[in-house]
């Protein structure tokens, strides 16, 4: 999965996550980072229903767009890749043999809102 760099605020680690009850399984909780609250989502559970490999000692990719703030826990962070601008339409490309699909934060947020709560 890829996200445009303009949405990425920072990559954080060693941040304590505060769990929030009655939320979807992939919703890990809230973090407080430099004056902002971020909702943290485990992308493994969000996409594959499995916990990400960085779940126990996560790098958290902090996104900020409009007034929203979300943190994503990935399996790993490959790095910054320069690709053609497709207007954030969810283009797909190959990176080192892996299929990478670009996602927008809104898409993630909407999908999160559609998930069942309280499980």
């Amino acid at each position, binding site marked *: 999965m890829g996200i445009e*760099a*303009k949405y*990425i*605020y920072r*990559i*954080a*680690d060693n941040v304590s996550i505060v769990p929030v009850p009655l939320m979807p399984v992939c919703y890990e909780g809230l973090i407080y980072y430099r004056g902002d609250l971020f909702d943290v989502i485990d992308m493994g559970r969000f996409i594959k229903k499995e916990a990400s490999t960085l779940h126990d000692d996560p790098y958290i990719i902090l996104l900020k767009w409009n007034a929203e703030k979300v943190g994503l826990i990935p399996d790993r*962070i490959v*790095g*910054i890749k320069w690709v053609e601008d497709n207007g954030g339409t969810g283009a797909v490309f190959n990176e080192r043999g892996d299929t990478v699909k670009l996602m927008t934060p809104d898409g993630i947020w909407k999908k999160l809102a559609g998930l069942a709560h309280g499980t």
Partner: protein
Amino acid sequence: MSRTSIRNKLILSFLVLLLLLMMVIAVINRLTDDYYTAQAISVALALAAGAVFGGYFSRSIVRRLNSLSAVAREISHGDLSKDIPLLSQDEIRDLEEVFASMVKDLREMILDIKNVAAKMEETNKTLSNLSEKVLASSEEIDESAMAIAEGSEQQTMIVQKTSLIINNCLDQMDAAGRQSAQTVSKINNALVKTGTGETKARQTLGYLDNVLRQIVENTKPIYRLSNNVEKIRMVMHVMDEVAQKTELLSLNASIEATRAGEMGKGFALVANEIRSMAENSKQSSREIRRIVDDIFQDNKAVIQALRKSEEDVGKGRGIIGSMVATFREMVSGVKEISSEVTAVEKVTLKQIKEIRGLLSHFETLTRLAQQNFVSTQKTTVGTRNQKEGMKKIVELMQSLNTLSERMMVSQRRFRLRG
């Protein structure tokens, strides 16, 4: 009354008679003048007086002699009850006294014979009973002697067998004594070897103490190495954190450079390089960590092995210590066994000596039993002879009884007063 002999009596009577005759003749001569007549009358008177006197005198003697003769006749018929009359004072009186004494002696003799016969009869009866008893006893003695002879023979055989068994026992005791002596020698050897074993065990204990100290000394650098490895791991942890922070920093720098757009591309390259360096540093750190972990694991294994060796050496030390104690107890026990076996050897030797004495006693007993056997056989012969003798005695007693009966019959022929 004084004793007067017949001769004196005759002389005196004759003189008195002559005096009377002379007096009568004198009277006659006075009365008569005729000499011849006077002589004839005197002779006739003298003859008449002589005849009267002689008749009287002879009758007196014959009468007493007849009286004695009658008594003698009665005595010859066995009547000793009558007394001899002592009438005269002359020589016949001596005859009467002698005869009375003879009758008295005869009475006493007959009484003695009667008593002797009665006693003989009684003694004969007693002897007969005793003879029968002695005969019965002789038979019993004979049977007993036979039984004793058989017993003596069996006793001799048993004693000889017992002597043989005791001899075998003595041989075995001798063998046991020799075995005891060998055992004592072996126990002494075992004592020496056990003492040597104890010394060797003590030396081994000293060597193990040295090995233990050496292991402890050798363990110290390993522990120091382990501490150093632990420090290296801590440093590696710090390096990991630095690499991670550097990577994070490079990622954030890349993000910031991306936001800067075209102006930030150069900074993005630098950030990528830094991230690449951080990645390399992370990989190197990971490799070092792996090597350090291997060293740590090896070191840990070495320490565990050393600890195990230390424990094993400690256990070995304990075992050797217990071996030393065991050897000490063995030495003590072997000493006790040695003293006990020595005591057993002494007792065995004493038993051998006593059994030899017992054997000599048994040999004496065998001789005595044989002598006893011979003696009992002699006793048997003697009792048989005694039986024969007793039979002869019984026969003699029977003949003696017959004689005593005859004596009693003869004695009954005599009649005593009362």
